[in-house]
């Protein structure tokens, strides 16, 4: 049995010894360095570009513009709308305009400083509210990217039948992924003439296709390899360095390396969507929710990236993990000239969790009910209907997570003034929203008698390689881990889809189970389970050609109704409850998260240490989201003025693993990556209210915002 065991991660030794080759470590003989020249304006027409001084610099090999792109100059995870290199117009500060290739990194960067660009500024659409009424259009089709609704029952009638109604506005800001490793990669042409790019990425097959479109070559002539990747959190789902590297290799025929500085990563790459949320909640005196009405306005920046995804996912998760009979959600995403907002751990749901969890606490306070009791009363459970009227037929362990927290909640005691406790709950649909998002893999044998797993899953540090191996071992009934992993290479694997949406354990895990089932039948026929050694089976099979077993899984979902979003957008959901104890210094406005209990229904923990690792990391990110992280366009440049929590800001975390097994998942597993983060900020904000009487509705609740709110409260 490997499932449920703390198997040491397959990547652990290399990482501990420092021998793992991250994208920044990759080198090739005769390699060139490339860097990007970026817009210094948020919105402008490019009138003139003078590259003569850059070209004159000794050691500069090429200066590439959009004119040098042989294929299509547009990329995008959902829709192709973002130029690799700007054509005549820039729509955010940091947008890529040119690629400079030099014989050293220093020369390339020096040359980029010598490029002179003349701009003619256009109106800077600085927020979505300006965007919705400005006559200036960021794209010809208008400034509204997407409008999604969730309509269930009759919200108006629901409010009429309510004893108490709470209505508030919440807002969140841009968050940087702040992975330890910035975007980087290397590219070269191989002996077949194929373009090879190895990079720090969350999805290799998607990038292979984007490079093929960019260069107008067949995808079969592009090979993308995942280097050991130092974190992703959604930021390495979009094309980052890969397109520029491929373009530079195409034109120079030499190996090209590229790595963003931290400043460049902050400036150029995607951020978490800032959302403005108007939230109205109705309930009866007994605490049961009657209706929820939510208006979400989001800032997606000038290009789509994952804007539509966040718009829809935020809408369908807007009620939180509760039974609400009447729901009306309007979720709108507008273009602006701010940084491109993209995918980031939770796709809009952490922002909504702030709102629904704050609302629930206020309802509880108004009717004199305990915050835990009101959550238990309304919790989704097996048989419940979600906001999209999906019946939860299977794993739905929210109540178990609440029960896991209950003893600590009931026993809580304030440690003097400034001490407070808060709860946060969440549910999260595993996988993409209401669309097909399959994973494939294949298994074979080596002539030496080992099983070989070919996986296109990108392990970005979360541990999917180990988890998939554990699943395979158990699915084959192996007693020891006799498996070779061939991974992260489009030449040797099938498309597993992106490492995002907490989907790899569930979806790719099922694809592995599917392939394993077929291999198992074969092994059965060969007498493996009656004691015939695998070595012998493989040796015999090798003579006829080793058999290959394909695996595939696509979670069953339905497309959301275009008007009401009703349907079953996800095959399964993860659930969680966090309880956070804070200490607020009312003199300084400093809030310290002291202790967290985090209970997660993961279906089944394939690797308990991995699950706990995700929970600890999610809590850390939640502390940042709640208390300090804020990217301010035009101001934030680096970690000098972007505050990320340190180990000293981390609370003690006690992780509680709840296993309500999901019959459609591998050995009952669901996912935990994003859920680990989602309820934490909400729990902190609720704890601050408990500690100080002040309700913070804008994130981050940094020392200055909190102090000003405390002062205001004093005056009242």
């Amino acid at each position, binding site marked *: 049995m490997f499932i449920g065991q703390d198997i040491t991660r397959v990547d652990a030794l290399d990482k501990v010894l420092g021998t793992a080759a991250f994208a920044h470590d990759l080198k090739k003989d005769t390699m060139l360095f490339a860097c990007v020249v970026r817009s210094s304006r948020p919105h402008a027409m490019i009138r003139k570009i003078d590259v003569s001084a850059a070209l004159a610099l000794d050691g500069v090999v090429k200066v590439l513009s959009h004119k040098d792109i042989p294929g299509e100059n547009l990329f995008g995870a959902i829709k192709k709308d973002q130029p690799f290199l700007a054509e005549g117009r820039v729509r955010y500060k940091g947008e890529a305009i040119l690629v400079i290739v030099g014989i050293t990194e220093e020369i390339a960067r020096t040359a980029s400083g010598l490029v002179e660009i003349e701009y003619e500024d256009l109106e800077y659409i600085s927020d979505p509210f300006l965007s919705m009424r400005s006559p200036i259009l960021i794209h010809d089709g208008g400034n509204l990217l997407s409008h999604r609704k969730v309509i269930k029952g009759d919200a108006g009638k629901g409010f009429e039948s309510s004893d108490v109604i709470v209505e508030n506005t919440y807002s969140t800001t841009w968050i940087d992924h702040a992975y330890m490793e910035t975007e980087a990669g290397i590219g070269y042409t191989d002996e077949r003439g194929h373009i090879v790019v190895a990079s720090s990425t969350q999805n290799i097959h998607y990038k292979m296709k984007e490079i093929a479109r960019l260069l107008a070559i067949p995808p079969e002539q592009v090979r993308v390899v995942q280097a050991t990747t130092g974190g992703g959190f959604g930021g390495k789902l979009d094309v980052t360095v890969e397109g520029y590297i491929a373009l530079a290799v195409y034109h120079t025929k030499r190996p090209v390396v590229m790595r963003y500085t931290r400043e460049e990563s902050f400036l150029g790459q995607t951020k978490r969507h800032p959302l403005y949320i108007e939230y109205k909640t109705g309930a009866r005196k007994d605490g049961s929710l009657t209706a929820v009405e939510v208006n979400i306005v989001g800032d997606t920046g000038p290009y789509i990236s994952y804007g539509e995804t966040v718009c829809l996912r935020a809408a369908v998760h807007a009620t939180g993990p509760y039974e609400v009979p009447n729901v009306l959600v309007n979720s709108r995403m507008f273009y602006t000239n701010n940084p491109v907002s993209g995918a980031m751990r939770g796709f809009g749901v952490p922002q909504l969790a702030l709102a629904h969890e704050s609302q629930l606490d206020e309802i509880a306070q108004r009717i004199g009910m305990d915050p835990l009791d009101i959550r238990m009363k309304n919790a989704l459970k097996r048989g419940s209907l979600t906001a999209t009227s999906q019946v939860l037929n299977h794993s739905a362990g929210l109540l178990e997570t609440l029960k896991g927290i209950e003893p600590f909640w009931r026993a809580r005691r304030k440690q003097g003034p400034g001490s407070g406790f808060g709860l946060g709950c969440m549910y999260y649909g595993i996988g993409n929203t209401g669309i097909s998002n399959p994973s494939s893999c294949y298994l074979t044998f080596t002539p030496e008698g080992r099983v070989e797993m070919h996986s296109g899953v990108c392990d970005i540090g979360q541990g999917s390689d180990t988890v998939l191996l554990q699943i395979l071992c158990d699915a084959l009934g192996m007693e020891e881990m006799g498996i070779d992993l061939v991974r992260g290479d489009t030449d040797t694997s099938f498309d597993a889809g992106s490492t995002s949406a907490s989907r790899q354990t569930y979806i790719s895990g099922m694809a592995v189970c599917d392939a394993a089932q077929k291999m198992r039948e074969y092994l059965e026929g060969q007498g493996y389970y009656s004691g015939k050694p695998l070595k012998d089976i493989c040796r015999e099979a090798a003579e006829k050609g080793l058999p290959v077993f394909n695996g595939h899984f696509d979670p069953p979902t339905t497309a959301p109704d275009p008007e009401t979003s009703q349907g079953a957008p996800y095959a399964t959901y993860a659930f969680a409850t966090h309880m956070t104890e804070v200490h607020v210094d009312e003199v300084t406005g400093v809030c310290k998260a002291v202790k967290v209990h985090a209970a997660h229904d993961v279906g089944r923990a394939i690797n308990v240490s991995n699950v706990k690792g995700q929970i600890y990391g999610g809590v850390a990110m939640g502390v940042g989201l709640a208390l300090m992280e804020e990217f301010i366009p035009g101001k934030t440049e680096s970690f000098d003025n972007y505050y990320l929590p340190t180990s000293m800001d981390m609370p003690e975390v006690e992780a509680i693993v709840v296993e309500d097994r999901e019959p459609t998942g591998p050995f009952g597993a669901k996912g935990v990556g994003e859920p680990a983060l989602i309820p934490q900020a909400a729990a902190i904000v609720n704890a601050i209210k408990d500690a100080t009487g002040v309700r913070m509705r804008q994130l981050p609740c*940094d020392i200055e915002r909190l102090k000003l709110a405390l002062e205001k409260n004093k005056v009242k």
Partner: protein
Amino acid sequence: MLPKFASVIAKTREEALSWLSSLENPRIIAGGTDLMVKMRAGKQYNHVIDVAGVPELLTLTETDEGLSLGPAITHARLSISEPIIRNARSLALACGLVGSPQIRNMGTIGGNLANASPAADSIPPLLIHDAVLVLESREARRRVPLEEVIVAPYVTSIDRKELLSSIEINPLRGYREGYRRVAKRATWAISRLGVAFAIREDKGRFADVKLAIGSCTPMPFRPKKVEDLLRGAEKSEVIITEAIRMALEEIKLISGIRPSYAYKLPVLQGILEEVLRG
């Protein structure tokens, strides 16, 4: 990336002084936690003299008159130095809060002073200890009070050819001494506000009060009128309130009204209340 530059490593004070006098536009590096950041951002310093290993600049001597600190002593060392903890507790505390462990292991007290940031943690404690800087060149040697050395944010009156050779401070014994600071996160952060204090009380009176406030005005400063008001006064809520009012007034007089004061002044008020009440 760092721009190109030439550097020398001085082995003795004498050597440092002669490099200073002979090199054109020299720049002293003593840890580099500020200088390297500026250089990486594009500042060009052609001649860099590393004094971090000069033995004379690493000594800490305690005499009857006071303490003499070598300017190349790191924050880490000062934060755990027994004579500092005994004689200048606020300085030990402040040095223990600078940056991160890495920065404290590299950054030096002399560098912190010479950089003259309004938010330098070591400066308020040095101010309440009436620090005097010994500045030397090949030709001359002078002693200048710290208060006079910092002339504007990030600007000092130290000449390019001068070496900060020691920092002399008065010990404060029998004082309730400390350093309170506020930052945006638990560590590795620039102070939003720093208050060094040393208070001696006697039979319900403030016998002596020394205060210095950092990160609030262009240069960390001592509200001496407030100290005068409190010296010898009976310890009461009335006098504490008056003292704080005066301190806040003085800040507004120095800097005018700044947007950050909406946060800083109420916080300073709270900290001063706690500090003075004890």
